[in-house]
C-alpha cells in the first residue's frame, strides 16, 4: 500500500512541466555556474528575481520549496557564518580572539546565503517538476558525447532506469521484512549503537537475498525477451523539444546578458 516517490516529483501541469527535461537539466547545471557571475547587489537582485520567478512559474505551494531548503538550512547558515566571522577586509566592526566581523564578511555572508539558497531552489524546481525517469533520460542525452570514448551510455541509462523502477519495490520489501521481524520481537528503536547495528542484520540479510533473487529473475526475463546488449536497440521513450524550450532558453539567455551587463568588471 505504501507508495513512495523517488526524488520529489509532484504531478502538475504548469509551464515549467512542459519544458523538456533535457532543457531543464542543462539550465539547472548552467545556472549553478552562472550564479558566480553575480558579484554586486544589482546582479544578486537580478538572479534572485529570475530564480523566484521560476519558482512561482511552477504554481506549486511555497511549502514544497521550503521542504527542499529545510534539510540544508543548517549547512547554509554554517557556511554563511564562517564567512561572517573569518573574512577580513573593509571596515572591522568587532573582533575577539580569532573571530572578526568585517564589512567584507557581512557582504560575503549575505552573498553566500543567497547563492546557496538559490541553487537549492532552482534544483528543487527541476526535481519537483521532472520525473526521475525523465531526469535519467536527460542525463543519458547529456552523456551521449562520451560514446566516442566507448562509454556504454545506453547500458548505464538502462541500469539507472531499472534501478529507479525497483526503488518502490525494495522499499515495500524492506517495510515488510521490518514488520515481520518486529512481529518476532525485534526492536529497532532501542539500545545503543552496537545493539542497533546488530538489530539491523535481520533486515539486511533478507533484503540482500531478495535483491539478489530479483536480479537473477530479472536477468532471466530480460534474456528471454531478447536482450543481448545494446547493439541495434531502438528506443520507445523519446524526448521532444517544443516551443516551451525556446521560452526557457530565452529566459536563461536574458538572465546571463543582464548579469554580464550589471556585474562589476
Amino acid at each position, binding site marked *: 500500500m505504501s507508495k513512495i516517490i523517488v526524488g520529489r516529483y509532484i504531478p502538475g501541469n504548469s509551464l515549467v512541466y512542459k519544458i523538456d527535461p533535457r532543457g531543464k537539466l542543462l539550465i539547472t547545471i548552467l545556472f549553478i555556474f552562472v550564479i558566480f557571475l553575480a558579484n554586486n547587489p544589482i546582479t544578486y537582485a537580478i538572479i534572485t528575481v529570475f530564480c523566484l520567478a521560476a519558482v512561482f512559474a511552477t504554481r506549486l505551494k511555497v511549502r514544497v520549496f521550503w521542504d527542499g531548503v529545510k534539510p540544508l538550512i543548517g549547512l547554509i547558515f554554517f557556511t554563511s557564518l564562517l564567512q561572517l566571522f573569518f573574512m577580513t577586509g573593509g571596515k572591522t566592526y568587532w573582533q575577539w580572539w580569532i573571530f572578526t566581523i568585517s564589512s567584507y564578511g557581512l557582504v560575503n555572508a549575505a552573498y553566500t546565503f543567497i547563492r546557496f539558497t538559490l541553487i537549492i531552489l532552482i534544483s528543487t524546481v527541476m526535481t519537483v517538476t521532472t520525473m526521475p525517469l525523465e531526469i535519467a533520460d536527460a542525463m543519458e542525452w547529456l552523456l551521449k558525447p562520451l560514446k566516442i570514448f566507448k562509454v556504454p551510455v545506453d547500458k548505464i541509462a538502462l541500469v539507472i532506469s531499472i534501478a529507479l523502477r525497483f526503488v518502490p519495490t525494495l522499499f515495500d520489501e524492506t517495510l515488510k*521484512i521490518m*514488520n515481520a*521481524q*518486529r*512481529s*518476532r*520481537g*525485534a526492536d529497532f528503536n532501542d539500545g545503543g549503537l552496537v545493539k542497533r547495528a546488530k538489530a539491523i542484520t*535481520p533486515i539486511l540479510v533478507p533484503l540482500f537475498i*531478495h535483491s539478489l533473487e530479483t536480479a537473477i529473475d530479472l536477468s532471466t526475463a530480460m534474456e528471454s525477451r531478447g536482450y543481448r546488449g545494446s547493439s541495434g536497440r531502438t528506443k520507445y521513450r523519446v524526448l521532444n523539444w517544443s516551443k516551451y524550450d525556446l521560452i526557457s532558453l530565452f529566459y536563461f539567455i536574458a538572465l546571463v546578458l543582464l548579469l554580464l551587463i550589471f556585474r562589476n568588471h
Partner: protein
Amino acid sequence: MSIKFEKVDYIYSPGTTMEKKGLDNVSFELADNKFIALIGHTGSGKSTLMQHFNALLKPSKGSIDIAGYHITPQTSNKNLKELRKRVSLVFQFPEAQLFENTVLEDIEFGPKNFGATEKEAKNKALKWLSKVGLSEEIATKSPFELSGGQMRRVAIAGVMVNEPQVLCLDEPAAGLDPRSRKEMMKLFLNYQKAGHTVILVTHNMDDVAEFADDVLVMEHGQLIKHDKPENIFKDKNWLEKHYLMEPTPSRFASELANYNFTQNPLTLDQLVDGIKENLKGEFDE
C-alpha cells in the same frame, strides 16, 4: 480477553497529497479461541487491519482491545514487545524473513527476543521444527539451502514458536503444492483447537467454508459483513454484488436444478450428504 475494535480509522500519510483512508470506522468483537477468516479483495484493507492486531500500525482514531492491551492513537511505540509475543503475524511469503545461519537459529530468534534462555529457545525451536513437519536433520542447515516449501515451513515455525494467544496468517499456503497446503491448514486448525485464536487472511472460499467459525469481510477499508460462514454464503445476490465467490460445493449444488438442499452445502462432505438425502428414495428400493 476477546478482541474488540471500536470505530477504528486508519489514515495513510496524513496531511500529504497521498493521504488515503486505510480503515474506515471499523468496529467488531471476536470471541476467544475461534478460527476467524478475514476476506476481501486485494486493496480492501485486509492487510491494514491485520497490522493493527499487534500495533505495527496504530489507529488514527478509535481504540482496540486485544490480548490485554488497550491501543489508541496515543499508545507509545515502547513496551509493545509483550503484545507482539501474545499476538503474532505471519506475512505473505514469510520465507522472506529468514536470515540466520542455520534453520534452528532462525526459529530461536523470536523466543530469544522475548527473553527465553538459550536452552529454552533451543527446545522450543526443535519442538516447532517437528510440528511444521520438518526433520531434525535440517536444523543445522542454512535456511537458504532449502526448497521453497521447506523455507515456508521454517518461517511459519519461527512465528508459531512464540506460541501466541492470537495467530494471524496472511495467505500462508499461497504457492504451496496441495499436499503441503493441506498439512499447513491442519497445523493451524490444531493450533486453534488447542486453545488459541487463529485469524486467517485468505481468498480461498473453500478454506473459509471448511475452517472458519466467524468471517470478517472487508471492502474499501470498511467492514461490510461480520457473520458465520453459513450466513455469509447464504445471500447469493449480496456475494455477487461484492464480487465474492461462493465455495465450490455450494456453486455446484445451486446448479443441480431438481435438487432440494435443506441447508446450503458449504463443504464437499455437506454436498455429498445433501445429494444422498435427495436420492434417498432411489437407493432404498
